[in-house]
């Protein structure tokens, strides 16, 4: 009986990290030093945002988590493309964004 209980506990301990990853991303101690550094820097930037913007980002985070993995991947790819724009392309994108936004209902 004790053996069975022990086995069950070990199995649970092995399953927990995978479950954590599935439910809400990796916990802090599983990030690489570079990822921890990036998260820390972004945390500091987040602290400097106005409270209204912080709340908006939290809501977006909830929405982002609810997205299917392929949609999350699409956003990451689009962010990479956005980051890769050169200054001229970026200015054009900003203009297009303004135009696109003003044309929305």
């Amino acid at each position, binding site marked *: 009986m004790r053996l069975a209980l022990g086995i069950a506990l070990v199995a649970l301990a092995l399953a927990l990290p995978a479950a954590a990853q599935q439910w809400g*991303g990796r*916990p802090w101690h599983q990030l690489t030093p570079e990822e921890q550094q990036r998260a820390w*820097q972004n945390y500091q930037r987040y602290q400097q945002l106005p409270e209204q913007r912080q709340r908006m980002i939290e809501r977006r*985070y909830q929405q982002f988590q609810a997205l299917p993995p392929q949609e999350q991947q699409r956003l990451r790819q689009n962010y990479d493309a*956005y980051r890769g*724009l050169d200054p001229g392309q*970026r200015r054009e994108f900003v203009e297009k*964004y303004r135009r*696109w936004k003003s044309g929305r209902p």
Partner: protein
Amino acid sequence: MRCGRAQKHMTAAVDGELGPRQRGALDRHLAGCDPCRRELAATERTLRALDALPMERAVSDGLEQTTLRRVRLAAAEEEERAHRRWRLWLPIPAFAVATVAVLVLAVGILTRTGEAPAPRAVASAPLKPSAERLARAQPAPPTRRPRAEARQAVEPPAEPPAELAAAPDLFMNLPILKNMERLEHFEAIQTTTLDDETPSGQAEPSSG
């Protein structure tokens, strides 16, 4: 670093996405390149102006909750189906043997190294952050620091603040979350045409 490369890195620099080495290389280049310094200042102004644009209209609470509920239900059903399949196909004896093997292996490793792994600093961080918990967490008072000083604080503390430990994913993805609307509609925005893209000097076709 040359000007072309420096300019490629500017959005990432403004978003704080450059690693320390790349940031150092960029700073060294900027120290000796006036046009790139101006370009970086312009990039910062552009992105700040973009940030200042009104955010997307908030979805009504009812619609948001209904949508989220549907997504969660669909995910739960899919998970349940996967579990059922898993339970059908994995015989219990095989599972028990595998678990015992892992246990023996773990005991062997611990015996060989002679010491247990050190406890993690944030082992008790909750798995799934919620908006409420994030809202309850007390953030440090916002303090604006000069850029150079802020850049020095790049090393994360040994024990992260509760808010960061609870949702490291949020902060990892902060630039994406900040630009989410733009990224969701990236393709549509890219295909938007500007007025000056139409050939200039052409007369409007007369209607009469």
